[in-house]
C-alpha cells in the first residue's frame, strides 16, 4: 500500500482530498467556450454536404445574404484567395478547410454563414443554395484497393490508389515460421467499430481579431492549446498571424477524450472570418455535426495466435486494415502513424510477433482520434485479449490459467517486448489474483457449470491489459516536430502561497487538485494554498497538452522536478537564515532544519518570505522555478478486469451482473479521483462493447447521427462498477506514478466481449465483434442452432 508522507491538511500524494475546481461547476459558474460572449459577438453556422461524395457545381449565396443580419457567406473560393482552403494534418496528409470543387464525406463543411445571431445564421445556412452532382461513394474499406475503385485523392501528387500508407513492425518471416509449425493456431478477424467520443460539450470556438493591435484571441475547446497556437502560426503565418500575436485560451472543457485534439475546419474558418471582419466570430458544433464528424477506432484486424498444446504462447501476428476516411487526420505523434498499436503483444512473454497495417481512404469523415486511449492501444489490446481467450477456449484451458501461464513475470521487468517497447514495471500475477479474489472467480466458475447444466447462458470474461502512456521521450515522440515534453512553472509568493502553471489542460480530470497535491507532497505547502492555472497560451509555459494519459507522466513529473529546484534554492536560503552551512541543512516535508538540532528550523513559508525580504548575498531574489520534463521512457499502467454476464437465449438480452476492475497505475496522487476516472472510463468501455458504433449505408450516409439512435450509455446501461488497486511504482517517474484515465476504456471492451462470448460458447459461438447488441446475439444464436 502507498503510505502518505503528508498530513491530510497538507494533502500531498495518496490523500483523497475533495476537488478544488468543483465549486464553480456546482453553481453554474463554469466558463465553457459557448459561455464566452464578447462585445460585437457574431455567430457562425456551417453548411454541410448531404452527400458522401459529390462535385460542387455551384454555391449561390444571394438568398442567404439577403436575410437581414446575415453578414457573410464564406466558401472555399474565398479562402483560396488566401491559400487557406486546405490545411495540413498532423500526419503529413491534407484536409480541406472548405471545398472548391468536391465534397468527400457526408456532413463535410461546404461553406460558412456569419450572422449577428445564432438563429439568423441558421436561416442563412438554410438559404444557401448548393448544386451538387453526386458520385458513387466508396464506403467499404475492403474495396478501396480494388482496381475499379475510384481514386479519391487525385489532388495528391503521386497518389495512384487509395492506400495511404503501409506500416509494419517485427519479424514477418520468423513469426510466420513459428505459426506454421505451432501445435495450435487460432485465427480471427476482429473489428473495432468506428465510434465517437461524444463528450457532452461539443466542439466550438470564439475567435476574435483586433485589427488595431493585430492580436488574435481564440477561445477553443482544445486539449492542446500551445500546439494549436503553433499550428495556427504555421498555417496562417503567410497572412500575417504571427505566433506572439496569437493567444489560444482553452477555458473549461466539457469532456475531451481525444476529440478535442484535432483542428477542425470550422475553427480555421472562424479565424479567417474574424481576421477579415474584425469582430468576434463564434462557432458551436451541434450534436449531429459532432457525431458525424471525427471518429475513433475503425480497425479491421486479422489475428493469428500460435501456442503449444499446453497453452504457452509462441507468436502473434496481426494484419490490419484501417479506414481513415478521406484524409489521414489521426492525432498521432509524427513517427507513429499507427500510434502505439505495437503494444499488441500484450502482457505475455513470448518471442515472436509481427504487426502490419494498411491505411486506406474512403468517403467517410476523417478523424482517427485517440479516444481515451494512448493512440490505438484500445485496438491492440482488444486484438490480443480476444485471441488469448479464443486460444484458451480452443485448448479447453481456463482463461485465467492461460494468462498466469504466459504473463511476463515481475522479475522480468524492465521487459523488452517483441515489438520494441521497454515495459517499466508490473506485477500482473498479483493484479489478476486480486481481481479473481474480489469477484469470487472460483464460485462463479462453479455457478457457471451449474447454470450450463441447466441450459442457461452465463459467461465470465477476463482482460489483463498493458497500456503504454505518457508520450513521450523526445527522441521518439513529436507532433509536427515539436518534442512531446511538458512543463510546470511554480511561483511561491512572499506569504508562502503559490501559483503554478502547466502546459497541459484538464477536461474534467481534476488537475487543479492533483497538481496542487503533487506540489504539496514535494514542498509541504498545503494544496489549498496552491492555485493551478492552465490553458492560456499567454500565461502558461509551453506544453503539448492533455491526452493519451500523459498529464501525470509528463506535467506531473515536471511539477515534481520544478519543486525540487525550488527546494534546492530554499536549502541555501534556510542555511543563510539558520546561519549554518548548506550541507548541515536537512529537509522533511514543509521544513528545513539543522542536522542534529531539529529544533532549529525554518518552514518553507519562512524561506519563501526570506526569498523576497532577506536574500542571501549574491543570490537572485524571488522563489520561482520552471521545469520542462522530457520523460526517459513511457509508463506502462496495467490491470486485470473481470466481467460476469448472463444472456437470455430467447431474446439475446445481455445482463452484466458484475464487473471488477483492478488497476495498477503506480503510485496514486488522489485515490478518489483515480477511482472516478476508472468509473468513467469503464462506462466508455461498455459503450463500444455493447452499444455504440457509427453505421453507414452503402451510399455513405450515417444512419445514427443523433443521440436518439447513437446510444451513449445512461445510468441504466452503466453497471455498478467495482474497483481496486495494486501498486507497482514506475521506476523512472519522479513520483512513481503512471497515469490511469485510459486504462478502463482500453480494458473494459475485451473483458465484456470475452464474457458474452464465453456465455455463448456452449452454443458453438466462438467470436462476435463489438458492439455486441441483443439483436447480434440473437442472430448468432439462430445461426448456431440451425447448424446444430
Amino acid at each position, binding site marked *: 500500500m502507498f503510505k502518505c508522507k503528508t498530513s491530510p491538511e497538507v494533502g500531498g500524494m495518496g490523500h483523497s482530498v475533495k476537488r478544488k475546481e468543483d465549486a464553480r461547476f456546482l453553481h453554474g459558474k463554469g466558463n*465553457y467556450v459557448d459561455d464566452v460572449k464578447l462585445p460585437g459577438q457574431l455567430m457562425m453556422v456551417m453548411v454541410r454536404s448531404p452527400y458522401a461524395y459529390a462535385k460542387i457545381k455551384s454555391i449561390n449565396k444571394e438568398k442567404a445574404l439577403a436575410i437581414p443580419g446575415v453578414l457573410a457567406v464564406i466558401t472555399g473560393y474565398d479562402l483560396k484567395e488566401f491559400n487557406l482552403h486546405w490545411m495540413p494534418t498532423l500526419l503529413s496528409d491534407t484536409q480541406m478547410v472548405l471545398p472548391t470543387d468536391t465534397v468527400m464525406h457526408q456532413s463535410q463543411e461546404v461553406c460558412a454563414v456569419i450572422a449577428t445571431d445564432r438563429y439568423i445564421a441558421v436561416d442563412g445556412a438554410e438559404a444557401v443554395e448548393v448544386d451538387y452532382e453526386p458520385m458513387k461513394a466508396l464506403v467499404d474499406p475492403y474495396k478501396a484497393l480494388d482496381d475499379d475503385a475510384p481514386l479519391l485523392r487525385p489532388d495528391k501528387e503521386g497518389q495512384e490508389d487509395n492506400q495511404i500508407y503501409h506500416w509494419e513492425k517485427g519479424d514477418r518471416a520468423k513469426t510466420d515460421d513459428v505459426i506454421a509449425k505451432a501445435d495450435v493456431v487460432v485465427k480471427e478477424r476482429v473489428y473495432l467499430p468506428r465510434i465517437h467520443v461524444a463528450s457532452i460539450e461539443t466542439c466550438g470556438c470564439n475567435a476574435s481579431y483586433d485589427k488595431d493591435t493585430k492580436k488574435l484571441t481564440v477561445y477553443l475547446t482544445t486539449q492542446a492549446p500551445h500546439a494549436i497556437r503553433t499550428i495556427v502560426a504555421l498555417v496562417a503565418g503567410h497572412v500575417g498571424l504571427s505566433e506572439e500575436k496569437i493567444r489560444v485560451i482553452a477555458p473549461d472543457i466539457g469532456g475531451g477524450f481525444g476529440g478535442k485534439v484535432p483542428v477542425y475546419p470550422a475553427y480555421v474558418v472562424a479565424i479567417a472570418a474574424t481576421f477579415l471582419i474584425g469582430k468576434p466570430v463564434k462557432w458551436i458544433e451541434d450534436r449531429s455535426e459532432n457525431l458525424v464528424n471525427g471518429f475513433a477506432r475503425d480497425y479491421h484486424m486479422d489475428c493469428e495466435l500460435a501456442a503449444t498444446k499446453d497453452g504457452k504462447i509462441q507468436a502473434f501476428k496481426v494484419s490490419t486494415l484501417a479506414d481513415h476516411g478521406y484524409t489521414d487526420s489521426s492525432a498521432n505523434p509524427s513517427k507513429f502513424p499507427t500510434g502505439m498499436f505495437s503494444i499488441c503483444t500484450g502482457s505475455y512473454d513470448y518471442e515472436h510477433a509481427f504487426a502490419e497495417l494498411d491505411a486506406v481512404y474512403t468517403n467517410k469523415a476523417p478523424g482517427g482520434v485517440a479516444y481515451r486511449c494512448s493512440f490505438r492501444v484500445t485496438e491492440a489490446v482488444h486484438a490480443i485479449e480476444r485471441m488469448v481467450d479464443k486460444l484458451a477456449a480452443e485448448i479447453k484451458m481456463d482463461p485465467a490459467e492461460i494468462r498466469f501461464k504466459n504473463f511476463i513475470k515481475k522479475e522480468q521487468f524492465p521487459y523488452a517486448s517483441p515489438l520494441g517497447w521497454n515495459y517499466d514495471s508490473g506485477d500482473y500475477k498479483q493484479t489478476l489474483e486480486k481481481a479473481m479474489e474480489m469477484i469470487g472467480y472460483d464460485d462463479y466458475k462453479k455457478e457457471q457449470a451449474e447454470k450450463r447444466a441447466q441450459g442457461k447462458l452465463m459467461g465470465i470474461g477476463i482482460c489483463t491489459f498493458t497500456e503504454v502512456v505518457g508520450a513521450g521521450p523526445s527522441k521518439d515522440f513529436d507532433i509536427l516536430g515539436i518534442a512531446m515534453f511538458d512543463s510546470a512553472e511554480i511561483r511561491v509568493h512572499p506569504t508562502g502561497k503559490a501559483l503554478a502553471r502547466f502546459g497541459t489542460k484538464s*477536461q474534467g480530470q481534476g488537475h487543479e487538485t492533483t497538481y496542487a497535491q503533487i506540489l504539496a507532497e514535494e514542498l509541504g505547502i498545503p494544496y489549498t494554498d496552491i492555485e493551478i492555472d492552465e490553458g492560456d497560451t499567454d500565461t502558461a509555459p509551453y506544453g503539448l497538452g492533455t491526452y493519451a494519459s500523459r498529464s501525470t507522466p509528463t506535467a506531473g513529473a515536471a511539477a515534481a522536478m520544478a519543486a525540487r529546484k525550488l527546494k534546492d534554492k530554499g536549502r541555501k536560503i534556510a542555511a543563510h537564515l539558520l546561519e549554518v552551512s548548506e550541507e548541515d541543512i536537512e529537509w522533511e516535508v514543509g521544513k528545513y532544519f539543522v542536522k542534529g538540532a531539529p529544533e532549529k528550523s525554518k518552514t518553507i513559508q519562512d524561506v519563501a518570505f526570506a526569498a523576497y525580504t532577506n536574500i542571501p548575498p549574491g543570490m537572485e531574489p524571488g522563489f520561482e522555478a520552471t521545469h520542462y520534463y522530457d520523460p526517459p521512457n513511457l509508463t506502462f499502467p496495467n490491470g486485470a478486469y473481470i466481467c460476469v454476464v448472463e444472456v437470455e437465449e430467447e431474446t439475446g438480452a445481455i445482463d452484466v451482473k458484475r464487473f471488477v476492475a483492478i488497476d495498477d497505475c503506480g503510485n496514486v496522487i488522489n485515490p478518489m479521483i483515480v477511482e472516478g476516472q476508472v468509473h468513467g472510463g469503464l462506462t466508455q468501455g461498455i459503450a463500444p462493447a455493447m452499444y455504440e458504433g457509427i453505421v453507414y449505408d452503402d451510399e455513405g450516409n450515417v444512419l445514427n447521427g443523433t443521440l436518439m439512435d447513437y446510444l451513449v450509455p445512461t445510468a441504466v446501461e452503466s453497471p455498478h462498477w467495482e474497483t481496486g488497486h495494486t501498486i507497482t511504482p514506475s521506476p523512472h517517474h519522479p513520483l512513481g506514478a503512471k497515469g490511469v484515465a485510459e486504462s478502463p476504456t482500453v480494458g473494459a471492451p475485451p473483458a465484456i466481449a470475452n464474457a458474452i462470448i464465453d456465455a455463448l460458447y456452449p452454443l458453438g459461438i466462438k467470436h462476435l465483434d463489438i458492439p455486441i447488441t441483443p439483436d447480434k446475439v440473437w442472430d448468432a444464436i439462430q445461426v448456431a442452432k440451425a447448424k446444430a
Partner: protein
Amino acid sequence: MGKHNVTMTINGESVTAEVDSRLLLVHFIRENLDLTGTHIGCDTSNCGACTIMLDGKSIKSCTYLTVRADGANITTIEGVAAEGTNSHLQQAFHDQHGLHCGFCTPGMIIRSMDLLKTNPNPTEEEIRWGISGNLCRCTGYNNIVKSVQQAATEMAKEKEASV
C-alpha cells in the same frame, strides 16, 4: 417573425422581455439573461444538460419555447442555493466526486432535485432510472448515484430535525 412579451420569475426575480416566437427557452436563459450554467449538449432532447426547474418540475429547456414559459416560475442551477452556499445535492456531488468536467452537472442536480421531491428515499435502481434522461460522459454514474443517496440521507435528517 412574431414578437411576444413574456414575464416570468427566474431564481426569484421577475423578468420581462420581448422575444421571438421561435426562441428556445434555453437560449433565452443563456443568452438573454446570461445565466450560462444551463448547458446545451444535443438537439434531440436526449442529454439533459439543459434541465431546469419550471413550476416545480424538471424540464428540458432546449425543447421548450420561451413564449410557453410566460408566467412560469423557473429555477436554474444559479438559483438552487444562496450564493456561496451549497444545497444538499451540490454538497453531495462535491463530497462524492459526482462530477468531472461539470458540463452535465447543473442538469443532473436539477433533475435529482425533482427526483428526490417525488421519491425522497430512492433505491439505487430508482436513482439510475430517475436520472436516465441525463447523460454524463465522464463519471460512469457510480458517484452520481452516491451523491443522490447522500443528499437523500441529509434531506431526511433535516426533515426529521424540523418536526
